[in-house]
């Protein structure tokens, strides 16, 4: 149904032409800063892919590939990394890409003034950056980090011109300077960002299909929050590419011969995390009962109409180390009932909900209206209806992003820890995301009260496995450890995996659009409008 990096296959398209302006309509929030070092969220990654490039890339098979760094080597103890930088690359302001520039970037990420969040975590273990000579840079780590290259392959650690960074946050946010195929020339808030072609483009990444600058002359990057409007705009030819289409639109598009790119995000899957730190989900039997009665397969099929496929793994299907176990997730209502009885939830009130010690079996499920699309919210409603059959009272509360984080956050950060189940996607390249999501360290809140381990798993054995995996660089051993981690997470019924983090693009009147193998953002290096 889909084609990675597909060319306009079905639709009777015209001839590809050089130049022209491509209009991209995004449904993601408009970044408040175009520099992904600041904060660090997916919308920033999406747009910065066009003008900033990371040190390394990753191909479709999950293999790390050279990009701004052509070669790398790690010491025996895993504490020293030597990187060789590509030669003759300059930033679009003319500043050369050298070891000093890399040092400035890492320090920029680590500077509290930058207020970096995602990138800061990625380079947390880099203790010192040592420019060996212009073309070589050495990272000294505080402890071994097997995920370092994966971390460095994301847009959140992309390399910018030191001169650009030196301008200060405000200016750099408005127009970061990188090595990418396009340059930010204008940003009209709430309207668009204009990206002009970088005529001297030379730092081609793994996805580039030709040398030299991009075919397109310009990209108009528009913010169009309403999915129905985005779809209508694509249909009427006002825009060439849209992201975050509704499943409906994808199905209709495929029938109409509009190109569909399905590029699931790396890192974790979309799943419902069950808060194991408090009743009722502090009991594995209750968690299992919930999972066994949720019966999500028919819902996913109906709601997504084949656009999303069911997952049985904590990791995205694009992660080579993903481990699945469908046998754990078969629907078994009778077994669920039995488990609840065993766990002491053996009474039923007049409305049909289970009760224990006079307390109802309530599951509070806050839903972020910004992060969960309509189909997903509908799926939650189905889960609500299905689990009700065995006596769960699922209370779905739609919240705006701030309130949602507020509901999740730990009391220390002013939050309420007010959830029993939640779906919080997490995008990161590589299996190291497991450490963030399931290591007990992940229950320690940041000053804001935010913490990533929302199932609140605190399992010393799991911690040990994760720590070990983070140190070990041997791919096979690493894979083995991560498989074990995933098995424990699945068997503990901490999560109910749903499907990959959906990341779809529809394109019309353009060909050669591909997505990066890292965080699956689209690149327009090889794209051409078709007349």
């Amino acid at each position: 149904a889909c084609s990675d990096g597909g060319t306009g296959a079905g639709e009777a398209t015209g001839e590809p032409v050089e130049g022209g302006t491509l209009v991209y309509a995004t449904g993601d929030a408009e970044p408040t800063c175009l520099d992904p070092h600041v904060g660090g969220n997916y919308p920033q990654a999406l747009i910065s892919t066009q003008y900033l490039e990371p040190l390394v890339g990753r191909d479709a098979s999950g293999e790390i590939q050279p990009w701004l760094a052509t070669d790398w080597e790690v010491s025996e103890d895993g504490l020293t990394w030597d990187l060789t930088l590509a030669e003759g690359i300059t930033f679009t302001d003319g500043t050369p890409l050298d070891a000093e520039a890399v040092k400035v970037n890492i320090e920029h990420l680590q500077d509290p003034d930058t207020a970096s969040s995602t990138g800061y975590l990625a380079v947390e273990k880099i203790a010192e950056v040592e420019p060996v000579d212009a073309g070589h840079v050495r990272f000294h780590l505080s402890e071994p980090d097997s995920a370092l290259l994966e971390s460095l392959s994301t847009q959140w650690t992309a390399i910018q011109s030191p001169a650009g960074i030196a301008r200060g946050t405000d200016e750099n946010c408005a127009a970061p300077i990188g090595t990418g195929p396009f340059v930010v020339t204008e940003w009209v808030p709430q309207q668009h960002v204009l990206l002009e072609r970088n005529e001297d483009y030379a730092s081609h990444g793994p996805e580039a299909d030709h040398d030299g600058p991009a075919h397109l002359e310009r990209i108009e990057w528009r913010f169009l929050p309403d999915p129905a409007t985005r779809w209508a705009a694509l249909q009427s030819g006002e825009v060439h590419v849209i992201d975050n289409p509704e499943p409906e639109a994808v199905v209709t598009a495929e029938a109409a011969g509009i190109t569909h790119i399905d590029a699931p995000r790396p890192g974790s899957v979309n799943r419902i995390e069950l808060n194991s730190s408090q009743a009722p989900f502090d009991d594995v039997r209750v968690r299992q009962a919930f999972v066994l009665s949720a019966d999500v397969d028919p819902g996913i099929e109906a709601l997504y109409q084949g656009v999303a496929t069911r997952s049985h793994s904590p990791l995205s299907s694009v992660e080579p180390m993903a481990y699945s176990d469908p046998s754990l997730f078969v629907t078994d209502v009778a077994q669920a009932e039995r488990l609840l009885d065993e766990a002491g939830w053996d009474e039923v009130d007049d409305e049909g909900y289970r009760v224990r010690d006079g307390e109802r079996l309530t599951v509070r499920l806050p839903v972020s209206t910004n992060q969960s699309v309509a189909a997903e919210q509908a799926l939650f409603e189905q889960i609500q209806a299905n689990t009700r059959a065995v006596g769960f009272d699922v209370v779905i509360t739609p919240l705006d992003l701030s309130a949602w984080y507020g509901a999740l956050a730990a009391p220390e950060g002013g939050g309420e820890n007010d959830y029993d189940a939640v779906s919080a996607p997490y995008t990161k390249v590589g299996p190291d995301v497991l450490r963030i999501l399931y290591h007990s360290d992940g229950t320690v809140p940041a000053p804001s009260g935010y913490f990533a381990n929302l199932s609140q798993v605190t399992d010393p054995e799991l911690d040990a496995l994760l720590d070990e995996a983070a140190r070990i660089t041997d791919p096979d051993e690493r894979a083995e450890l991560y498989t074990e981690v995933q098995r424990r997470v699945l068997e503990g019924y901490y999560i109910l995996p749903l499907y990959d983090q959906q990341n779809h693009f529809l394109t019309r009147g353009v060909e050669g659009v591909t997505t990066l193998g890292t965080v699956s953002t689209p690149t327009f290096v090889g794209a051409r409008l078709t007349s």
Partner: protein
Amino acid sequence: MSVLRWLLGRLAAAALVAWVVATVVFFALRAAGGDPSEAILGGPGSQASEEAVAQVRAEYALDQPLLVQYLLQLARTVTFRLGDSYARRRPVSELIGDQIGGTLALAALGLLLAWVIALVVATAAVRARGPVARRAVGLLRGAEVVASVTPHFWLGAVLIAVVAGGLGWLPATSSDSSLRSLLLPALTLAVPVAGFLGQVMRDGLEEAHTAPFATTARTRGAGEGSVLWRHSLRHAALPAIALSGWAFGSLLSGAVVVETLFGRPGLGRLLIDATHSRDVPLVIGVVLVIALGYVVVMSVADVLERLVDPRLRGRLEAVRTAPHGEVVS
């Protein structure tokens, strides 16, 4: 003398509005939870470090007692230095300045369209002769009521799906102030308002058309057209003008929805984003501008009403009764 008093009254109202807005928004958003420093440090869910948070709190005086923060905010509001947006790190006045034009253009065109539609419908209604035409007028009345209760978001979605997506006549999105791109969103805004205005105008027109002065005009030899243009319409316009102040407020409210729907830049969308990110200065700024804009528009409607109706001059306060419920602005 009375003009001066009127002006002073308006200014007092504006000052009061400013104070209330600043107070309400400030405390509302602070009560809403979520530390403002989050908004500053890359939005909700940020994992900014301890140092970064401390630094920001000091910089924005967030470490001061709440009352001090409130007074600071009040001082900024009173002096119209609205401060910097937390999330966008740009002066609020600049952000609003960038967006206000688009919203005003949209609301103005919406109001204009509403007036045109209402006028056409109302005049058609009073000029209808014969049973078929009367029946059509009956239907029109129904249509007015239905129009007045049609939710913007739904109307807009239907228009986008049909006119833009299906027929491809007009763009689905609206990014600039060209007529082509403004038409659909403005129409979306205009239809419900036109429903209200149309009802009011038709009532007024029917009343004026049978008033003794209209009969007198006929006894002087005036034709129906002449009676309409020279007499009845002015009378019918009066309540509609009074209502337009309210309508403008409703259009601004509608803009929040319509701008999001059509992907138009503007104050409405700015406000939603700002609220979602708990960007206190920005929310105060936008709400303030909208509220003051409303005061201004009401004043303009007042003046217009007085221009059309000399009877109102000298009277300080005209009793305006918007058709009801609709008073949701």
